[in-house]
């Protein structure tokens, strides 16, 4: 049934469906609201999602105002580097201070450290700088496509981005205090806090082996500019290959621990069932018999040149997109135009490093009518995307091969 709101939207866009008694086809509903929602997200988003520009940002798809959760629309993924003002925004907690770079400090210590230190932004910048181009993808990216749907922020394709991050190695910062041999985890807190003081603060830990990885940084630059406020100004953790939950924004404390961090955000949140996904990176001190923390990203790809249902001309159509994984690197991207019976290799674009988006393109010979294109990425350790969803209650790690239909006239 048409709601009043949808009727108004239809009227506003010249759609003559009033009184027809028919619901809008999904793609029309999304277009009527001015938002290109990912096909398959919960219908409630038709009413609530908006294109909204946060301060310093281009319009993003607003999923929630408070805390702010905004995803990038498909059109922002046509380059392997996501510009800062097009980068998605994700917060768990809504008390987000404007951090003053002049008074900003990171406190470093903990029972697993030999000493304590306090670092200002200038201190960080005075340390040897490293750069890495890495994908930052929310653990829950594509949660909205889970079938059945599961509760949470109902992300479509756009809770991810790839940037060139510059900062100090976390390892070098940890060297300032020294790790005891009993140290097993390093915990991180950001400046934001909950609206209500009984809500658990967002604190996350990494296993020591990942914390001291050469690529794990405390970044103060993103694509050559200071971090945007909504992406963690003035400094955030960069954990290449791992999902965004570990990339603490507005980083203010680093605690080396001899005991596992036990809080809501480590367990039960951000867990995956043991054995369900082919992940290599383990977080042993947080594992139990049934669940384990989410760690590295699974291999995945996205068609970014065209949305599902797009109209194209007959003849050669270049279908292109991005592929990424947990840091092993992309070996191949293959496309199928016959529903997965036969596959042809796509052409890979510039290699910006094993943690970066890898562009690819595929020449489709579009015939009149419907043309389906399916894509499957394989990484350098032989992992591929899945044909069907590996359902889990939090909607993580959805790397189902995407299939879109292009209509050629």
């Amino acid at each position: 049934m048409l709601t009043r709101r949808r009727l108004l939207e239809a009227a506003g866009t010249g759609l003559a469906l009033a009184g027809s008694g028919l619901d809008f086809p999904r793609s029309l509903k999304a277009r009527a609201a001015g938002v290109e929602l990912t096909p398959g997200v919960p219908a409630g988003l038709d009413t609530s999602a908006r294109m909204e520009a946060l301060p310093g940002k281009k319009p993003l798809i607003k999923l929630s105002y408070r805390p702010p959760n905004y995803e990038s629309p498909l059109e922002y993924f046509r380059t392997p580097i996501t510009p800062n003002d097009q980068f998605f925004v994700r917060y768990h907690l809504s008390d987000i201070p404007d951090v003053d770079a002049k008074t900003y400090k990171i406190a470093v210590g903990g029972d697993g450290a030999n000493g304590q230190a306090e670092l200002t932004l200038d201190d960080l910048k005075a340390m040897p700088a490293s750069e890495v181009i890495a994908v930052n993808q929310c653990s829950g990216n594509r949660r909205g496509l889970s079938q059945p749907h599961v509760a949470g922020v109902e992300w479509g394709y756009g809770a991810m981005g790839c940037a060139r991050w510059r900062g100090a190695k976390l390892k070098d910062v940890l060297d300032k205090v020294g790790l005891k041999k009993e140290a097993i985890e390093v915990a991180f807190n950001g400046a934001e806090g909950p609206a209500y003081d009984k809500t658990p603060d967002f604190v996350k830990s990494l296993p020591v082996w990942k914390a001291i990885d050469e690529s794990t940084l405390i970044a103060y630059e993103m694509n050559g500019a200071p971090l945007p406020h909504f992406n963690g100004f003035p400094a955030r953790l960069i954990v290449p290959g791992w999902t965004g939950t570990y990339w603490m924004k507005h980083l203010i404390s680093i605690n080396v621990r001899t005991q596992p961090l036990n809080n809501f955000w480590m367990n039960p949140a951000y867990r995956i069932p043991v054995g369900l996904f082919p992940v290599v990176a383990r977080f042993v001190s947080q594992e139990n018999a049934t669940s384990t923390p989410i760690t590295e990203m699974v291999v995945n790809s996205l068609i970014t040149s065209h949305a599902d249902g797009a109209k194209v001309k007959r003849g050669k159509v270049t279908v292109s997109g991005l592929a990424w994984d947990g840091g092993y690197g992309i070996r191949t991207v293959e496309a199928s135009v016959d529903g997965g019976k036969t596959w042809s290799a796509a052409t890979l674009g510039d290699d910006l490093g094993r943690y970066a988006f890898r562009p690819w393109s595929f020449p489709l010979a579009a015939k009149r009518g419907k043309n389906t294109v399916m894509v499957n990425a394989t990484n350098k350790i032989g992992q591929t995307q899945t044909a069907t969803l590996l359902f889990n209650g939090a909607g993580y790690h959805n790397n189902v091969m995407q299939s879109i239909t292009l209509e050629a006239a």
Partner: protein
Amino acid sequence: MRIALFAAAAVLAAFPAAADEAAIQLKPGPGLDKVQGNCGACHSLDYIQMNSPFLNAAGWNAEVAKMMKAFGAPISDADAKAIADYLAKNYGT
């Protein structure tokens, strides 16, 4: 609760886009005032629209329970029931 509302107000004041949050319109019905007063203290109400319509009554009960147990929301049992009933009726399957 007072602390929570005060904190929420402070966040609203500091966040320019929050003016748009006031435009969120949930469906009218018994319990809506409890939803606005309790749920809205910590998060914008578009979370409810976004998470619909796929939860059944048990699913919405579990969400309300999660807000109280995991996130510490100070909601009375009577309000929790009114909220869960409202959500199941208006945003449930």
